[in-house]
């Protein structure tokens, strides 16, 4: 099986008031293609930093990261990626449809192909009826869904979701779970972080637990979590042992 993401001895050290802060410490991680991969850890574990390195927002201090075998520092590495940030926000002066047109054009999708794709993603996130409304008028859940739609505009092979259900009501969460499982059914790789451990347990094939910038465990969910134990219980034990 090919790997969608390969991270080798990745370290990120920030400087804060002259003091070095290690955000990631020699992280090694492989995300197999076609899987839903849960990336979990307590606050400040380095999950978002890992995602930011993968997306080229920050440069690694040491080590390397590759997406579909392409160095993440090359802009072409992002051609097959869709990304939903932790606190999604977007151009509120645009309508939902205009946002998707903009996102599609950045992937060089045009004409009928673009309009068909827009209709497809709008229906996937169930926002066909409000797509011509200004984003400024959207609720939090609608904002999350339109941002998810723009992340899927290029029909990405790898979708990176940073806390995709954060702040959503139960119906919103269920919608996101449905989209994730739908993506898996279509052979896509989903790499997502979440604090909702029950959710991770429900949808993930693989998971990795990160704490203080270090990888604690990684593998298929069924093998990582001992039988008869919940992920939450296992997670608490694993993290408190660190």
């Amino acid at each position: 099986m090919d790997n969608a993401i390969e991270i080798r001895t990745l370290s990120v050290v920030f400087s804060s008031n002259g003091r070095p802060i290690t955000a990631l410490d020699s992280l090694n991680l492989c995300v197999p293609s076609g899987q839903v991969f849960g990336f979990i850890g307590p606050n400040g574990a380095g999950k978002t930093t890992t995602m930011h390195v993968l997306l080229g927002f920050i440069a690694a201090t040491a080590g390397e990261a590759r997406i579909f075998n392409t160095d993440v520092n090359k802009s072409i590495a992002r051609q097959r990626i869709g990304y939903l940030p932790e606190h999604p926000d977007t151009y509120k002066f645009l309508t939902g449809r205009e946002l998707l047109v903009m996102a599609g054009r950045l992937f060089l999708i045009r004409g009928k192909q673009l309009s068909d794709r827009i209709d497809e993603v709008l229906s996937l996130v169930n926002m066909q009826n409000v797509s011509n409304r200004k984003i400024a008028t959207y609720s939090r859940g609608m904002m999350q869904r339109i941002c998810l739609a723009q992340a899927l505009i290029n029909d990405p092979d790898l979708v990176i979701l940073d806390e995709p259900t954060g702040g959503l009501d139960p119906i919103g969460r269920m919608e996101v779970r449905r989209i994730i499982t739908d993506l898996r059914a279509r052979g896509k790789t989903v790499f997502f972080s979440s604090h909702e451990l029950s959710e991770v347990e429900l949808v993930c094939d693989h998971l990795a637990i990160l704490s203080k910038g270090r990888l604690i465990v990684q593998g298929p969910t069924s093998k990582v979590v001992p039988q008869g134990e919940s992920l939450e219980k296992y997670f608490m034990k694993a993290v408190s042992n660190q």
Partner: protein
Amino acid sequence: MTRILTIAHTVWLGTIRKKDIYVLLILLGALLLAMVSLDVFGLGGAVRYVKDLGLLTAWFFSWILAVNISARELPTEETNGTVFPLLAKPITRAELIAGKWLGTWSVAVISTMFFYLLIIAVVKYKGGSFEFIPLAQAIILHSSALSVICAIALAFSTRMNHDAATSITYILTGAAFFIVPRVPEFMARETGFAANMLMLIYNLLPHFEVFDMRKRLVHDFGPATWKIFFIVLCYGALISFTFILISWLAYRNKRFSRGNLI
């Protein structure tokens, strides 16, 4: 190029929908009409006075618009977090900078065209007119000056927040507008270190006075020679390119993190 145009188009939509241009256009119109109808110093009827005042306000308002919209684009992307989904697309930071510059510059130029149309209408109403070639040259050189201003504001905004980038661009471009043309006078009075410093300032700051054809238009001096006109255009392009390059150099390795470091 598609990506640069897409970014520029989004800047356009943002500026048009945030209504900055309309406010300035209405202000310019109101100011012109008030000054003309109030007949300050008994000059309200003089076409030259209307031209002079109109062109001065067009320069002033286009300067405000160019600085404000250019200095806010990148910092706002960061504060709102919209830079994250944007940079997660296969767009290079050079394309982002180029798109932002193109968007802000074209907005400033089109708004300036509207300012000129308003002035032409008022001048015509007062029974005057502009010669076509000097007017076209003036608008093109004015646009070239706006290109430099947008590039300077963008360069500062790569590493500063909106307020800081706006303030420093106003100071720098204001000094270039008002002080640089007078530096040779000061230099004549100084010697040694002070003279050298003045020479340095004179050479480092952009010379906006070369783009300004207001006097030619007000006093009907006719068009500038084409040779000088093209030299000034090339100068504008060179300075703009330099500041866009500085913007890219400052932005290409910029780290983005929101909230806590990890």
